[in-house]
């Protein structure tokens, strides 16, 4: 028996040696996914006086907010190179930096930002680029640099050079509240008020090209849907029906707008051809059908309906006219928004009496609750699908907060005056 075992062993050894003369291969099937340490060195200002904008700090903030990067503090930097010849990799390796960003800013009519991205561990240049634009758009230029760096290092297009719409409400004790529709950069900076009203402003949304917006305003004493061109400020009233006019949602091709009207009885979903203004009724149900959101392929719509007794998300197929229920977990799921991949759907999900933001993966059909705060509402997903912006309450005040789609990163946007609600993240702003 012993010799048999030995023989078997020898055979096995021989076979292994013949079959696997190759080198040892160790498989790595897990990771820790810690944020990547990146140093953004203050960009050299090649102009008179001091730099008008700290470009590096804008980039630093962008990368930090993504949660995938951990910017190195300036006080830890052992040198402040601005050209490649000044880069000493060992200085950066000493402070556990994985990537290094350096750059130079000059102004000759237009602002010009040159930047370089280095892999400290491998001691190579990963990327170099130049962005140019108006000096007044310095922050947007910095966001464009962030986008390029983010894409190089993550494989996903950056969404920093995008914008946000939100509504802020200033309470006036004893009088009418004050409503503002505001446009800001993706980091909340540079807010611009687009509309001020003593009557409610609601449901701001973007056209797919990011050039127009639509919203509901009560300025004519009853709700009406308007669209507005951002460049010209030109405004058009789209609806003025009796009853509810709400939840405008642009189709991905930009030609149609889904909306909720109650002119024929209970609130139902309608489609408006934006050229002819012709209306098509989509849902026909005695229950409330509301909050339409287009799937990115434009072939179906998600909407909220309480036709099952409690609000849940349903999907309407435009070609077949069929409706199917999408959410089954929990007793309350509402206000769906779909990521550009057509796979992740964010929504408001009630759990133990509290309202959280949840993400439903349409492929795996798994629901992930992303937030832990109690009164979360109005989720809006970044065009690259990485972050979800939502409204919540903090210290009795309505604020904007964001969470990464994996739930790992959360941050609050700087508080503004009054209650802030209904954020809408813009699509990519051209390229």
């Amino acid at each position, binding site marked *: 028996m*012993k010799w*048999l*075992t*030995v023989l*078997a*062993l*020898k055979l*096995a*050894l*021989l076979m*292994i*040696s013949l079959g*696997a*003369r*190759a*080198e*040892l*291969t*160790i*498989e*790595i*099937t*897990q*990771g*820790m*996914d*810690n*944020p*990547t340490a990146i140093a953004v060195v203050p960009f050299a200002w090649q102009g008179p006086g001091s730099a008008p904008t700290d470009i590096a700090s804008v980039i630093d903030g962008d990368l930090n907010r993504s949660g*995938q990067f951990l910017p190195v503090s300036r006080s830890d930097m052992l040198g402040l190179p601005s050209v490649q010849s000044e880069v000493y990799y060992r200085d950066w390796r000493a402070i556990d930096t*994985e990537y290094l960003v350096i750059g130079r800013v000059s102004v000759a009519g237009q602002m010009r930002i040159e930047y370089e991205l280095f*892999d400290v*561990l*491998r001691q190579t240049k*990963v990327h170099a680029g130049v962005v140019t634009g108006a000096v007044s758009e310095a922050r947007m230029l910095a966001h464009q640099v962030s986008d390029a760096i983010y894409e*190089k*290092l*993550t*494989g*996903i297009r950056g969404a920093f050079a995008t914008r946000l719409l939100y509504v802020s409400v200033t309470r006036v004790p004893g009088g009418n509240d004050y409503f503002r529709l505001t446009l800001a950069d993706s980091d909340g900076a540079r807010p611009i008020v687009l509309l001020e009203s003593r009557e409610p402003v609601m449901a701001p949304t973007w056209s797919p090209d990011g050039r127009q917006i639509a919203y509901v305003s009560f300025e004519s004493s009853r709700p009406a849907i308007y669209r507005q061109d951002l460049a010209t400020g030109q405004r058009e009233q789209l609806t003025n029906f009796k009853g509810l006019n709400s939840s405008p949602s642009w189709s991905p091709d930009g030609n149609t707008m889904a909306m909720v009207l109650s002119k024929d009885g209970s609130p139902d979903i309608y489609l408006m051809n934006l050229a002819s203004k012709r209306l098509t009724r989509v849902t026909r149900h005695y229950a409330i059908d509301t909050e339409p959101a287009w799937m990115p392929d434009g072939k179906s719509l998600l909407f909220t309906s309480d036709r099952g007794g409690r609000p849940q998300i349903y999907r309407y197929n435009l070609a077949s006219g069929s409706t199917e229920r999408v959410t089954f977990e929990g007793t309350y799921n509402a206000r769906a928004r779909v990521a550009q991949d057509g796979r992740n759907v964010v929504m408001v999900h009630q759990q133990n009496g509290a309202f959280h933001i949840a993400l439903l*993966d349409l*492929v*795996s059909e798994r629901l992930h609750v992303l937030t832990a705060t109690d009164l979360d509402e109005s989720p809006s997903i970044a065009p690259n699908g*990485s972050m979800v912006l939502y409204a919540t309450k903090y210290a009795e005040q309505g604020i904007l907060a964001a969470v990464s789609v*994996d739930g790992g990163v959360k941050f609050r946007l700087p508080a503004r005056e009054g209650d802030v609600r209904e954020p809408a993240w813009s699509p990519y702003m051209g390229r």
Partner: protein
Amino acid sequence: MSSSIYAKPTAPRIILRPALVSILLHVLIIYLMTVNWSGSEREIVRIKPAPKVINARLVDVSEFRPKPKPKPKAAPKAKTKPVVKAKPKPKPKPKPVVKPKAAPKPKPVVKEQAKPEPRITEQELAAIARADLARAVAEEEQAAEATATAAEMAASYASLIQQTVINYWSRPPSARNGMEALLAIQLIPTGEVVSVSVLKSSGNTAFDRSAMNAVEKAGSFPELQQLPAGEFEKTFRRFRLLFRPEDLRY
């Protein structure tokens, strides 16, 4: 009344029992036979997970064989032993006695010392080598055991490398389960990483870079210094790392 009712069913049971027992016995015998076989197979399979080490051992055996022929020049090729033997040639005096002792790593060397002590000719060397080979084959069983421990050792160092790299691997958000990047790693005996390169790209440069940087961040595996030099050379001087995430959400 009742006793007779109960008595009836017991009769067939008595008949059934031996039949059951015999069936069970058969099953047991078949089971034992198969278990015995699969048991011996299992032993082999169990070693399989660490083919690197077994592979390394086989190389050992093959090195024994060619030794007699290339003996004069084989010195640099093999490990400590040939070096020891090659040296005595120019000075065939008592020196070899001292040197083999200084290098007590390979067990056989110590035993052979009794023979080579007086004088060593090339023929004798060949003979010794042959005896060596014979002994190696004869001691196959012990060697198999030794292999098992060497295999365990190498496997544990491999898993140490694996765990270290896992701790440093930060995947980009574009990473998906099932992506594969195969890297070639080169170490030096201090355990330091001297080269990392992509053998097979995942097709996603951010993913490939994250894998390379995981190894670069790990930087070195100083624990490998505890490995015998031979094991290091055979298994860890060059090896591959296959990065294939399975724990991502999708």
